[in-house]
């Protein structure tokens, strides 16, 4: 199997090398993403239109659900028929593909666009493998947000945004007393992990967070941070309704939208649901960082470019890489998708408060990557399993569980 794999790769590389990309070959690209919902598709459309404006031919290949998209993509790679571009999360998830020589570096385009200067350093590191840039980032999603219903807060007598965890829990109590569901919770492992990380950042601080996930540090300080995080996470159980298990995140958002629930811990893509329901940021709902959060957990998307023999597609890849990082495209894309532009030098005026805050934090370097970027998919999955087990097990002791946490990295 390995030899055939090598043959395929060599074959593709040879074909790629021997077919010099003529400038006359029209740039065309088949783009595979999971951006199938209304706002996501609108955002993708922004890139598509700019791509076509610059003379490219766009072919859409969308598969909803990351699992299904990965399945389709990997199988097409194996069959030797990859798409020209694939939506990919930054970081470790692509390492294997690069290692097998299946992705094409876009270093030349990155240097031409001076990406190293306009991207935060930590992000630039995550699109670089073995010293070369392979990914063209499209935008970042902040994941340390707590969305709240202004209506619900008013009814419960909560003024302003709680500044620390004690005040936060006090607000939750007030919501409970007013008969409003304090926390709208979606009981799926990926959602629970995101909340876990949000809280971990507030307990471990930026350096502590990175130490745990990147250095796999197991010192007392780290264990303490995890224990404290689990304590807070455990406390939240009391504020969650019994129907939370298995609930989709947008069903939880619906609870906040209708004022039935007070807050939801979610990434900034939740704004899409509010917008679709006609709610206004600042008037009907608000966004705040998780209490005491020194920064923001983020996840970022990009396009990766499988090695492909066809010259027109190669031109398409180069064009797409450029277009995705274009400042105007970045802003327009973010506006539709609810994300934050990944370039720090864009025009902030059109962004909403949450996105602006996110961009500020990015510019100041106060961001830490979500586990999908710095853990291998296996470890990220193990983290999901861990948090899910802890959450569904009210009798579990935080200290004992904290020990189990570090087993993820094995």
């Amino acid at each position, binding site marked *: 199997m390995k030899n*055939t794999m090598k043959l395929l790769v060599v074959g593709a590389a040879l074909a790629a090398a021997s077919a010099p990309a003529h400038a006359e070959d029209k740039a065309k690209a*088949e*783009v595979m*993403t*999971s*951006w*199938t*919902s*209304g*706002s*996501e*598709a609108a955002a*993708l*459309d922004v890139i*598509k239109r700019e791509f076509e404006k610059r003379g490219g031919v*766009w*072919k*859409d*290949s*969308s*598969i*909803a*659900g*990351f699992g*299904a998209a990965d*399945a*389709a993509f990997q*199988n*097409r790679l*194996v*069959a*030797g*028929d990859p*798409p020209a571009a694939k939506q990919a999360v930054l970081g470790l998830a692509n390492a294997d593909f690069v290692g097998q020589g299946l992705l094409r570096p876009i270093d030349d385009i990155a240097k031409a666009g001076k990406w190293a200067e306009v991207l935060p350093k930590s992000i630039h590191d995550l699109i670089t493998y073995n010293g070369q840039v392979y990914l063209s980032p499209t935008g970042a*999603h902040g994941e340390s947000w707590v969305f709240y219903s202004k209506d619900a807060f008013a009814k419960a007598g909560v003024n302003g945004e709680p500044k620390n965890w004690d005040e936060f829990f006090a607000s939750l109590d007030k919501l409970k007393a007013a008969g409003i569901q304090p926390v709208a919770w979606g009981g799926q492992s990926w959602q629970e992990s995101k909340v876990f990380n949000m809280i971990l950042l507030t307990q471990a601080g930026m350096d502590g967070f990175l130490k745990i996930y990147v250095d796999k540090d197991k010192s007392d300080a780290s264990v303490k941070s995890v224990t404290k995080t689990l304590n807070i996470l455990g406390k939240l159980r009391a504020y969650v309704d019994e129907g939370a298990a298995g609930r*989709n*995140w*947008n*069903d939880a958002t*619906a*609870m906040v*939208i*209708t004022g*039935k629930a007070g807050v939801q811990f979610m*990434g900034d*893509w939740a704004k*899409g*649901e509010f917008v*679709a*329901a006609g709610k206004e940021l600042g008037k009907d709902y608000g966004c705040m960082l998780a209490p005491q959060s020194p920064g923001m957990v983020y996840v970022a998307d990009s396009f990766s470019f499988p090695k492909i023999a066809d010259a027109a597609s190669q031109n398409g890849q180069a064009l797409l890489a450029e277009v995705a990082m274009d400042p105007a495209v970045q802003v327009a894309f973010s506006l539709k998708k609810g994300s934050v532009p990944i370039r720090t030098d864009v025009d902030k005026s059109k962004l909403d408060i949450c996105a602006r805050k996110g961009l500020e934090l990015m510019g100041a370097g106060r961001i830490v990557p979500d586990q999908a970027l710095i853990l291998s998919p296996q470890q990220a999955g193990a983290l999901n399993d861990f948090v899910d087990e802890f959450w569904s097990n009210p009798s579990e002791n935080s200290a004992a569980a904290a020990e189990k946490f570090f087993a993820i990295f094995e």
Partner: protein
Amino acid sequence: MTTLAHPRGAKPSRLSVGRIGLYAFLILSALFFLLPLYTMLVTSLKSMDEIRQGHVFALPDTLDFSAWKTAWSGACMGTQCLGVRIGFWNSVKITVPAVVISVSIGAINGYALSLWRPKGSNLLFGLLMAGGLIPYQIFLYPLVRLLADLSLYNSVAGVVLVHVIFGLPLVTLLFRNYFVAIPEELCKAARVDGAGFWRIFLEIMLPMSVPMVMVASIFQFTGIWNDFLIGLVFAGRDNLPMTVQLNNIVNTTMGERTYNMNMAATILTAVVPLAIYFFSGRWFLRGVAAGAVKG
């Protein structure tokens, strides 16, 4: 307890306790079975605001058919907003040949395995049964490589081939059970007359097995039409069936979900198998009576 008449006897002319109980049971069961469909229909006719209120069983305030229209021709998957309509013909192109071929092979297999039993029949049958018990996911990688080597990847022919292979256990089981019940004298007499394997099959067995052909076709049609994984992996990008379109509409991870449209899209995708069940119920019963029944 009163002795009730046999179904073929005279129809009972009065409602006895037992009779009422029977109907009560049937109606309650029918409600259980219909509940999900009702919920889907009702949701598809509500507006998103209503759905957010979370009253799953409530009737819609106003009948809103816009979700249906969007689902058919306007739903977006990526930047294409063409609805599930575009997948419809792909589904047909994939399902019809796959059903025809797999049922034909199943009939031949069943016939050969039960009435002729060449060497290794039991082994082959055992292999097929064992193979039918393995989840599809395991086959994906090797099959993709195999089809790519045969240049069948990303083609309708490739998907059809995969469906035929995966359908072998089911159709072979059905037909073998069917033919096993056929009296041997029939076959013997034909052979004495000098007919060979194929002649007996085409002129005697196949015409006799029409009900079973219907049953197997209906089973296969449903399974293949509703399949998602095989279509996703093997149809490549140009021949994606309706179910992949449906998945794109329904399973977005981080985007908003328009539930009313999702429900409408699901029902639209299910319309063809549902229609087939509706109109073929009679055949189904007849076919099952004739064959699958016997062990």
